[in-house]
């Protein structure tokens, strides 16, 4: 039996591990174009800041591939034939055709660039996804004095803006929509996040479109906004989302839309082809796209298990995101953004933040907060189990609520 995994990110690696855990004999091959074995990609921020060294980014213990007898191949998969179960891999400039018994597409996506930049090769425009990106940003920042422009108000955008600001750079965050962090963020929370950034010296421009750009040589020097203002800058980091890699899936005739369609068991529309991670879309779930670290790992594991014949199911609910921005905790859980009248919202403003719970039919279905003492796992447990707590959910908003209590619910 030959298991082929395209992509050595967290989903791919987790799948490989799961396959090996269940079967010590089969052949497992991971094909990855970067050649880097799995790194903690979210920790690239810490790397950029100089808090951790390159070795510490490594997501796997040394000798992992040898121990687990997993073959790691540096190469690019250029075509997939799901009828003949064949893939073509380009290694060192040479094409090789390989066959598989089970295939996992875990090749993620690539970061988008704002359309107004076209396909010019500009030396001070960066993306922030790979170790290579982090290296280039790092070396540019050494000499950079002027304004750092961060484009995109999503998770990556706000995290990058916070990071640069903490590194004492002059940062402006530009978002084309009125949302920050996530779509559907409660208005008052959004205002708090905005205030927090402004308090820390980050300018935030929302609902602004770029109408023109200014270039000098091979450098981008300014953005012209729809209000006529010119924003001069020294560098730009584009955090404008990720587009899944769909070429192979399209070629093989897999069902695709904004990603590769998978069912709850991570099977695609073709037999023996699975997909997991950033490249998939869950068209059966209210959370269709979950391009976050933890669900990708879980998806990978479930795909791996099911490739060996199991029938495990991926549950995207409740998805969540949690981070610190300027040392203030910020978290989003489950259906924090669901509109509608049959949802009760319990909110509380505090000195340093805002908290909101979303309750439906006496069940906690979502929460968002800033500040306080959060502890995501028990919250998630409460949402998933549908259990109530004695004294009502409102207590969850209290500063001195004993979160440990939930473990026994």
């Amino acid at each position: 039996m030959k298991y082929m995994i395209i992509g050595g990110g967290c989903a791919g690696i987790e799948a490989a591990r799961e396959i090996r855990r269940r079967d010590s004999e089969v052949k497992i091959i991971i094909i990855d174009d970067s050649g880097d074995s799995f790194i903690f990609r979210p920790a690239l921020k810490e790397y950029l800041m100089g808090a951790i060294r390159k070795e510490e980014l490594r997501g796997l213990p040394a000798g992992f591939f040898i121990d687990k007898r997993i073959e790691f191949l540096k190469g690019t998969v250029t075509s997939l034939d799901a009828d003949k179960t064949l893939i073509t891999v380009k290694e060192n400039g040479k094409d090789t055709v390989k066959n598989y018994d089970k295939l996992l597409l875990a090749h993620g996506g690539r970061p988008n660039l704002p359309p107004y930049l076209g396909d010019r090769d500009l030396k001070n425009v960066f993306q922030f996804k790979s170790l290579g990106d982090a290296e280039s940003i790092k070396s540019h920042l050494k000499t950079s004095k002027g304004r750092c422009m961060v484009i995109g108000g999503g998770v990556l955008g706000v995290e990058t803006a916070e990071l640069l600001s903490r590194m004492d750079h002059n940062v402006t965050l530009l978002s084309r929509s009125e949302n920050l962090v996530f779509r559907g963020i409660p208005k008052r929370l959004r205002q708090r996040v905005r205030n927090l950034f402004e308090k820390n010296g980050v300018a935030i421009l929302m609902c602004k479109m770029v109408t023109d750009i200014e270039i000098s040589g091979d450098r981008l020097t300014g953005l012209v906004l729809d209000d006529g203002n010119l924003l001069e800058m020294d560098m730009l980091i584009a955090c404008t989302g990720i587009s899944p890699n769909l070429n192979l899936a399209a070629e093989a005739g897999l069902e695709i839309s904004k990603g590769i369609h998978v069912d709850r068991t991570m099977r695609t529309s073709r037999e023996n082809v699975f997909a997991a991670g950033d490249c998939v879309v869950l068209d059966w779930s209210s959370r269709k796209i979950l391009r976050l670290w933890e669900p990708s790992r879980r998806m990978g594991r479930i795909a791996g298990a099911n490739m060996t014949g199991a029938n495990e199911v991926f549950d995207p609910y409740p998805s969540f995101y949690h981070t610190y921005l300027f040392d203030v905790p910020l978290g989003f859980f489950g259906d924090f953004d669901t509109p509608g009248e049959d949802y009760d919202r319990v909110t509380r403003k505090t000195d340093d933040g805002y908290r909101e719970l979303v309750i439906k039919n006496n069940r906690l279905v979502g929460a968002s907060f800033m500040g306080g003492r959060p502890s995501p796992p028990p919250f998630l447990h409460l949402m998933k189990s549908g259990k109530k707590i004695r004294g009502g959910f409102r207590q969850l908003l209290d500063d001195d609520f004993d979160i440990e209590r939930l473990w026994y619910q």
Partner: protein
Amino acid sequence: MRKWVSHDIDLCIGCNRCMEACPVTKKHITIADLNMATEPETEVPQNIIDFSFNCVQCGRCVPVCPAGARRDYMVLFIKYKLRAQKPGKYDKYIQIKDQDKRGFELMKQKLYTTYMKLKHRDLRQYMGSVPSENKEILFYPGCYINSPEVIRRTMKLLNFVGTPYNILGGLNTCCGIPHLLIGEFELAEKNMDLLHAKINRSTPKIVITGCAECFEALVRIKAKHKTEYDILTVTEFLLTHRDKFPKVRLRPNITLHDSCRITRRYNRGEAPRKAIEMFSKLVEMENSREKTLCCYYWNMGHDGANDKNRKKRLNEARGKSKTLACDCITCYEKYVGLDDGIEVIDILELFEEALDKEGGAR
């Protein structure tokens, strides 16, 4: 636990902030190695075995995690995995502490208790007996009944306040947290269940303790058995009677050593602060509240750098004040007498001194 731990491994984004915050000795540990060692079926490499036994379960790694993962539980799970090979120091520690000892170990426990009873005759009636008379307050010192100075002080203050109280103490009333902290989950659970039954015999309205570990056990018992009584630290209880205490100024200023459990874990750091403000002026150290450092007790001396770390902490305190107050008996006992340059006090000493001072004036 297993389920939560594997969930937390998935959450980990490898930012290393937990290891940055960790105060104990660790050699060449990467997050990748640590996560791998935490998984239920994997082997634990030697450097992680050492680190896990050095871990004091102070929880300093928890509030710094951007993904909200519980590194403390993850390392505790490693301790659980390694419980068959735990070091002698760990074993020695729980040899006489337990509510359900049998055979030779029970004999040892009884011998020790008899020795303590003879040594501290005034406290002997509280060592190992379970009160059954209904009284509003239950003072639960557990194993620290064997720290007579602190017990006498607490009793003096409780007598002064005047609310009727029972005392539940002794090695055979151990709260189970020592077992939990060395990875003996089943023993911990059993001890907590037995303690629950012992507390219930006197149906208290409030249970008070001065030990952070006992406090944690009480909170866990309350959550599990849904008990009605309130749980307070001794300081919190005394503060509810603050008006009875004389208003005297005791020292120019005092700094506070926060407890890992009472302050960081349960967010109950206000009471010791208010207590200090009653009699003196509070000066905060930089590593206070959530950032507090440990007393390095709960690795049972496995980490050779414990004393060095404690001295570092006392140095930090010395930079702020001539007096360091501890709210938890465990912290107090680990810091007192370690450094001549700073006075370390149990926070209850302030209440006691205030009484003595006023008594003297009269």
